[in-house]
């Protein structure tokens, strides 16, 4: 684990909607160069947790500490743009990039989608759209990436590619990453820390340890947990 101070740290975060407790004293931290993945069933509070970290929602209790002037790149779960709005990928990225078109082209190249520059957003495939969103996040020159289901709407092979891309970005740029995911075993290979969420933190730690944890097994069923344990966790990077 990286020794430097965490980019962002949440302590005992709690939030309820009316009677329903959505988050129950959740604590987590993300350090530079670290990938933290939040897994959990639907309604577990994963997206809510990210929104609190982003400052889009306020917790009822708990506190957030982040590095001063932390620059965040955010990839939301979905983009719901009206079909009447004519936006090319380029025009969409221009909104986030006062640096100009050269930076936009560089960002698209970096995420492996250099050809979509003039394509209308609505004409992008699921994988291309996710890459454009990732490029938008990178244009903010972030220290921390917050990704809400970054492989949503992407076919299986594309999912593996995207996770690899995220791991690469982390390695090249030393970014901290926190992401929400459903696809457990793909993500298990590309993460340092897993946070299994179901309102409260069921368990957290290294992917292998989490996949053997009784609460994780209870939540996802022994079959999923077993598949997970079969996947060795290759560290393709070295922390200095």
């Amino acid at each position, binding site marked *: 684990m990286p020794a430097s101070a965490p980019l962002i740290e949440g302590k005992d975060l709690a939030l309820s909607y009316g009677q329903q407790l959505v988050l129950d004293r959740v604590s987590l931290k993300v350090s530079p160069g670290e990938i933290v993945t939040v897994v959990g069933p639907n309604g577990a509070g994963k997206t809510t947790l990210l929104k609190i970290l982003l400052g*889009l929602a306020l917790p009822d209790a708990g506190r957030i500490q982040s590095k001063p002037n932390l620059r965040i790149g*955010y990839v*939301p779960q979905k983009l719901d743009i009206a079909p*009447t*709005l*004519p936006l090319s990928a380029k025009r969409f990225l221009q*909104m986030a990039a006062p640096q100009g078109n050269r930076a936009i082209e560089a960002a698209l190249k970096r995420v492996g989608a250099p050809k979509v520059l003039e394509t209308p957003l609505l004409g992008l495939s699921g994988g291309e759209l996710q890459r454009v969103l990732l490029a938008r996040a990178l244009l*903010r020159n972030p220290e921390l990436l917050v990704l809400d289901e970054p492989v949503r709407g992407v076919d299986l092979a594309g999912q593996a590619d995207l996770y690899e891309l995220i791991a690469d970005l982390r390695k090249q740029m030393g970014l901290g990453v926190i992401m929400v995911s459903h696809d457990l075993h793909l993500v298990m290979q590309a993460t340092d820390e897993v946070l299994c969420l179901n309102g409260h933190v069921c368990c957290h730690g290294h992917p292998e340890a989490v996949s053997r944890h009784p609460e994780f097994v209870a939540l996802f069923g022994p079959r999923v947990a077993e598949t997970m344990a079969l996947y060795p966790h290759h560290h393709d990077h070295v922390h200095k």
Partner: protein
Amino acid sequence: MTGDLDFLWRAALAALAVALIAGPLGCFVVWRRMAYFGDALAHASILGLALGFMLKIDLMAGVLAGGILFAVLLFALERQKRLQSDTLLGILAHGSLAIGLCALALAPALNVDLQSLLFGDVLAVTIGDILWAWGGGLFVLAGLAILWRPLLSITAHEELARVDGVAVERTRLLFLILMALTVAVSMKVVGVLLITALLVIPPAAARPFARSPEQMAVIASAIGSASVLAGLYASLMIDLPAGPAIVAAATLIFAASMAFKRP
């Protein structure tokens, strides 16, 4: 000879100002899926008119104040979660229309022509109306130009914009105020019931020809202006009511635009 047609030039001047601002503003109404909000705002302006009359202030100022009040009220009410916003809009829109109509009926000295209120009376515009339309119109255009970037950003994705540091609340509120102003300026031209048509139809007709948001705004203004001229011409030649003729012309252009695929 030309003196006879003075009313027509005045009508065209006022209506063109409205078409010009309705283009870009209407684009945001369409992109932000706010057509129903436009309707509600227009209906509420009847109440503003009645209030303006009762308080003995300029009627246009009354309409404007009523519209801004309505926009702010809705902005505040949308933060509560008890009713979803389409229900809330339905209540506010028709509630304020009904109360406004009652108030107008109760004001004995005010001899308002309900017909002209609902469907516009562009052939009767005065020089003062034209000044209102162009003054208000230029103000709206300038405001929209300043607001363009953040507004487009929150229209694409509000939370993304917020994380990027856009002042989301302020931008939304200022946009609502620009809309209230547009409604006030458009009332005389097409009337309360047809204002939304002028906001929504030209942008929809412009969509197949636009490759960027800015292009769509400009084309929408052009289509709106063409509708104004065609509508007024039809109104002169075959004696149609001017406001509805303008909206009907816009609708025909929209129908023709359906034949084109969007780029």
